[in-house]
């Protein structure tokens, strides 16, 4: 199996004496090709800045005719050294840093870091805070999946669906703004609880939002799952087999769409999920069979929007009374953390999959080590089997299907 899953190595890229040309980032060139000498294969470079990509990565494809034979990925355009910066900050300051690792899943990274620190310092989080954490995380999931549905529709050239899903996404963003003060960066989790309570008057607004998504769910299904054009463009495209998803350690909807029933909310319940009995959704539950293709990834994410709506409704109706943080004064929290020593893992199910934070504290103000694993990190290798034998026209939707 050695080497089977590797991206093509540099020397392989250069075989037939080819020279890869840069795309000329920012110059607006869509693709640059150079003809192989004595062969029929081309190398196409897409990125690091390209209309089909939302993040600065570079994808190199070896193409024969219209088919992708091999793929390579370069990620070195966006290394910001966040972990190193974190080891020079105290845990309260790191919350703001962690929140900025990912724009969309900002609650997930902050919460993972909090959970790691709480396990080291043995801090017990009040039940009300756990419910608020759960509601915020699930609102974030709805936001992320609705955003992704729009991106996927756009990559397929179906912009009217994109406009519809993004307009529908506004509802959850407005609700998040009412609850947290911000539309995207929520600033909710803190060590030992949350920073803001959900007063009674906001419950009605949350339930109204949930009701809205439940009411449009049938329409979303019609648009995304019952449309013959979307089905033709996504069925059998970008297939990731179950055994490949397991071998490559894929996570989140990417793994679940291939039939792997893993979901941190189910496997190692945290926050209020202990009271909920959440189960991982695979295409088998939604469509009756598993293909592991882009269509399945759409179906899984769509079903998760409905699942999130149910979770939020349950949490709001059953939220316990009590404190929202174990200690309100950050200075006292820091004093307690200064005495904490040990290592901890904080992980949870973000919209894209498992977020993993490792923290080591040695009794100093700043953590000695901090390692962040975002979900796309685990899903990157899966791009290779998905891309092999794909058509050039399907590259954008396959790349987008892991929600990178």
């Amino acid at each position, binding site marked *: 199996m050695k080497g089977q899953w590797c991206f093509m190595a540099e020397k392989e890229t250069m075989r037939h004496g080819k020279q890869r040309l840069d795309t000329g980032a920012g110059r607006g060139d869509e693709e640059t090709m150079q003809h192989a000498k004595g062969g029929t294969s081309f190398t196409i470079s897409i990125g690091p800045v390209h209309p089909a990509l939302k993040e600065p990565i570079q994808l190199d494809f070896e193409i024969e005719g219209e088919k992708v034979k091999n793929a390579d990925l370069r990620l*070195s355009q966006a290394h910001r050294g966040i972990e*190193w910066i974190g080891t020079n900050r105290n845990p309260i300051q790191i919350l703001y840093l962690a929140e900025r690792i990912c724009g969309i899943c900002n609650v997930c990274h902050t919460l993972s870091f909090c959970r790691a620190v709480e396990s080291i310092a043995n801090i017990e989080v009040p039940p009300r805070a756990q419910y608020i954490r759960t509601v915020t995380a699930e609102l974030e999931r709805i936001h992320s999946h609705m955003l992704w549905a729009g991106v996927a529709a756009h990559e397929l050239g179906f912009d009217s669906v994109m406009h519809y899903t993004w307009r529908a996404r506004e509802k959850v963003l407005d609700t998040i703004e009412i609850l947290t003060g911000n539309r995207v960066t929520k600033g909710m989790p803190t060590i030992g609880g949350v920073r803001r309570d959900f007063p009674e008057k906001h419950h009605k607004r949350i339930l109204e939002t949930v009701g809205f998504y439940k009411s449009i769910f049938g329409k979303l299904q019609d648009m995304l799952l019952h449309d013959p054009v979307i089905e033709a463009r996504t069925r059998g495209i970008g297939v990731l087999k179950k055994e490949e998803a397991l071998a490559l350690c894929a996570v989140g909807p990417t793994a679940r769409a291939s039939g792997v029933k893993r979901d941190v909310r189910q496997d190692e319940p945290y926050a209020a999920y202990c009271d909920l009995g959440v189960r991982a959704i695979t295409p088998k539950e939604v469509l009756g069979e598993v293909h592991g293709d882009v269509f399945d990834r759409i179906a899984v994410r769509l079903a998760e929007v409905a699942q999130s709506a149910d979770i939020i409704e349950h949490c709001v109706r059953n939220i316990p009374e009590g404190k929202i943080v174990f200690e309100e004064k950050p200075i006292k929290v820091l004093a307690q953390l200064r005495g904490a020593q040990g290592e901890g893992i904080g992980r949870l199910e973000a919209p894209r999959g498992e977020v993993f934070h490792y923290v080591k504290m040695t009794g100093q103000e700043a953590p000695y080590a901090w390692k962040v694993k975002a979900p796309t990190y685990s899903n990157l290798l899966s791009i290779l089997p998905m891309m092999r034998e794909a058509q050039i026209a399907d590259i954008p939707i396959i790349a987008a299907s892991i929600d990178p």
Partner: protein
Amino acid sequence: MKPDAVLKDLQKKLGANILEARIAEHAEGGKKKHVAKSIWVKVGKSAFKDAVAELCKMHPNIYFAVISGCQEGDIVELNYHFSFNYAEPGEEFFVTLKVALPKSGLSLPTITNLVPGALISERETQEMFGVRIEGIPDPRRIFLDDGFPQGVFPWRRDETGPQKLVKKINEADE
């Protein structure tokens, strides 16, 4: 398999090569609590690959999360995080294999033949800690640009760390 059984099995197979072992517990939840367990095992460098092979034997489709680590003095300590029993409601737990490498021998065998999904993490460990992964199928950099200076390892805290690359905001350009 339960955490105690996994640890007992590892201790039986690896014997004195296990330098330290503990099971950590942390309870968390809303009205009901879930006790999350994790196993932390420190193994000798020579027995590291055998330990991974044993874990893979116990759990054929073991999930590998990431390699974390830190450098303290003359030692670079790496943690390989694996998960057991995923896809089983409430049963998942983590096994962390810790291995300490002296700066004079910063190398470790690849585990990609056992866990193909470890490739990205191994490439990251090479460039961030300067640990040579022997037999890695793709040794190129992954998160650092090719133009990043050679011999600077961003996760180290010694003279090879990234401090010299950081320009203080109050220092004027020469």
